[in-house]
């Protein structure tokens, strides 16, 4: 299908057309931060943004999610499964790094003998409209983790911001069908396509943070007990901002929430974090990861060593959120530098 063009001022038209069919999630400003929220009013849409504070992961894997609801009738329990998983979802304006995170999440939740029904159903019913990233931040490093500021993977429709207009491309079948419905879109001119390519090139060049993650994985695998971890975890205060804002973190806790006066309740899952001491604390009092050093290590190992060995890809999309969020500036780039230093030192030893 050919590329189309879509004027930014027509966003209201788009919304109007899609809202009856989809739950329309778009970037919107909440208390000064960009967040992906369900909207119905065009005024809420925020088009000028770098990226959202909390990743759009929370649309498909919200902080608090109901697993099922239950009712007590005497000693009997009646379990009611969720019915809203079939709702169609549209997420507008997802940056390529976050779109790629959907692929990671999908692969993770679908892996193994048990599939996470809740996430996968939602993902299946979601249409992702990606948006090219014209100005990556200094903290972005998507190109090092196999991404690109204009990567189209796991989006359905991809937009490139050309100023007043978006260049629209259908990527998947779902996207093509969506565009067919929007018959009023004009065809793109050759110049527009060229411009989009130019922007992609510029964006890629503007990314200065680059790592060789194959090497990182190798070094991590060999240095689980290295003293560098003490150094890395030293200034960490264990606040877990990094994991809560991470588009690929999936850990959760399961709780029962009761409405005791009405003999009903719901089993929910909420985000949990490996940076919390309670995460692994067992009832007996034993804690396999009792200190910050183990918890810091677990996060890094999980993304850059366990993920590659279990799912054959890095557990990171290079969005840089953990870098900007860390209040004590104990950020990923520094950590990776420190890890790579081990290799350098070892290399020196060998050559000497």
């Amino acid at each position, binding site marked *: 299908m050919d590329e189309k063009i879509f004027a930014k001022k027509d966003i209201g038209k788009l919304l109007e057309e899609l809202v009856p069919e989809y739950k329309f999630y778009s970037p919107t400003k909440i208390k000064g931060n960009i967040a992906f929220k369900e909207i119905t009013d065009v005024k809420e849409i925020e088009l000028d943004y770098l990226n959202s504070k909390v990743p759009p992961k929370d649309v498909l894997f919200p902080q608090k999610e109901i697993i099922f609801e239950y009712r007590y009738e005497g000693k009997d329990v009646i379990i009611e499964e969720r019915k809203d998983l079939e709702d169609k979802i549209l997420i507008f304006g997802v940056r390529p790094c976050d779109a790629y995170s959907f692929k990671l999440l999908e692969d993770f939740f679908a892996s193994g003998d048990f599939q996470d029904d809740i996430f996968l159903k939602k993902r299946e019913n979601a249409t992702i409209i990606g948006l090219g990233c014209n100005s990556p931040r200094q903290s972005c490093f998507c190109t090092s983790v196999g991404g690109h500021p204009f990567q189209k993977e796991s989006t359905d429709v991809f937009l490139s911001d050309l100023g007043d207009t978006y260049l629209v491309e259908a990527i998947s079948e779902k996207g093509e069908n969506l565009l067919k419905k929007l018959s009023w879109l004009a065809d793109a001119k050759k110049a527009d396509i060229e411009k989009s390519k130019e922007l992609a090139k510029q964006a890629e060049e503007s990314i200065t943070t680059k790592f060789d993650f194959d090497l990182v994985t190798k070094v991590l695998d060999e240095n689980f007990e290295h003293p560098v971890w003490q150094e890395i975890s030293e200034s960490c205060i264990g606040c*877990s901002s990094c994991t809560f804002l991470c588009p690929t973190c999936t850990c959760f806790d399961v709780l029962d929430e009761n409405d005791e006066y009405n003999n009903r309740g719901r089993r929910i899952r909420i985000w949990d974090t490996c940076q919390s001491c309670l995460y692994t604390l067992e009832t007996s009092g034993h804690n396999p990861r009792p200190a910050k050093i183990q918890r810091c290590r677990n996060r890094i190992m999980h993304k850059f060593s366990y993920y590659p060995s279990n799912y054959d890809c890095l557990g990171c999309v290079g969005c840089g959120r953990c870098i900007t969020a860390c209040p004590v500036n104990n950020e990923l780039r520094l950590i990776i530098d420190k890890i790579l230093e081990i290799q350098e030192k070892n290399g020196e030893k060998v050559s000497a």
Partner: protein
Amino acid sequence: MGLETENKDIETNLREVAKGLLKDKKVDVIIGYMEGTLPMLSQPIIIDSEEDVDKLIWNNLCYVNLAKYLVPRVPKFVDSEKGNLKVGVVSKGCVGRALIHLASENKIKLDEIKIIGIPCNGVVNRQRIEMEIGEKEILEVSVSGNNVIVKGKDFEKEFPFDEYMNDLCKTCKIRKPPLVSKSPDLCVGECEEYSNIVDDFSDIAEFEALTPEEKWNQITEELSVCTRCYACREACPMCYCNLCFVDQNKPVWFGKTTDLPDVFVYHLIRAMHMAGRCVACGACSLVCPMGIDLNKINRKLEKIVKERFDFTSGLDPDVLPPMVDFKMEDAQEFMLEED
């Protein structure tokens, strides 16, 4: 005031003092701040050799409360043979207060640390500036005269420091660590104990005058974005409980979800626990990834404690904190009485 030059002087002096302390073995390690990798941040650093003192910096972005690293002590502060090491703590007023208050709660021993006092003129409210810049990337921050200059790819903006200072710093009277006679600490630069700011809590008066409904709306709106990551708790030097009340599960006191009632209750009880203990460092708000402003609540606590019990936290390690103390004649105007 010329912040930059003043800071540069302090920085040079600080390095000298630190070097001297390490050289004379008066301290084993020093915890201070170093240059951050992002324009609006600084990074805590622990140094134990004289060569590293040049990494120490001092500027208006040093907002982490270093007392956090002493309760409990990070591994580098404990030697496997010598036990607790003597730690030099680069302390602005609120860090010093935190240390002293923690000493009054018997959490640290003042003779095991050395307070290296630094006169502080407030830290930049980075969240407010970031929010005002909005969706643009900040690449450079500098301070010139009374202005914070923020530069990005295609913009440059000045923020008057007086206004874009952290709210708690605006009313802070204790800008240098209070010197406790018992432990002869030292101060980089001159050390007067109080500056003569008159604090009549007028900054929260407007909020206090609102109706309960309006207050509820404002507070819940502020808290609505909370993700329950507990960064506020982890950054707070006074939050050292092994098991926080929100994490207790026998019984489960309060919900752990991000539903409004649960979030509200978490912040309410955390505030309750801060009464008479908050040292007004503002770390809780400054570390919040969502930019929630908790300063108003902290100010209210300060006010209650000041007015009711005439207490300011972190001034004297020998005075009992107000919540473990009592007086027969404490005010009780809030009690129900017969008409």
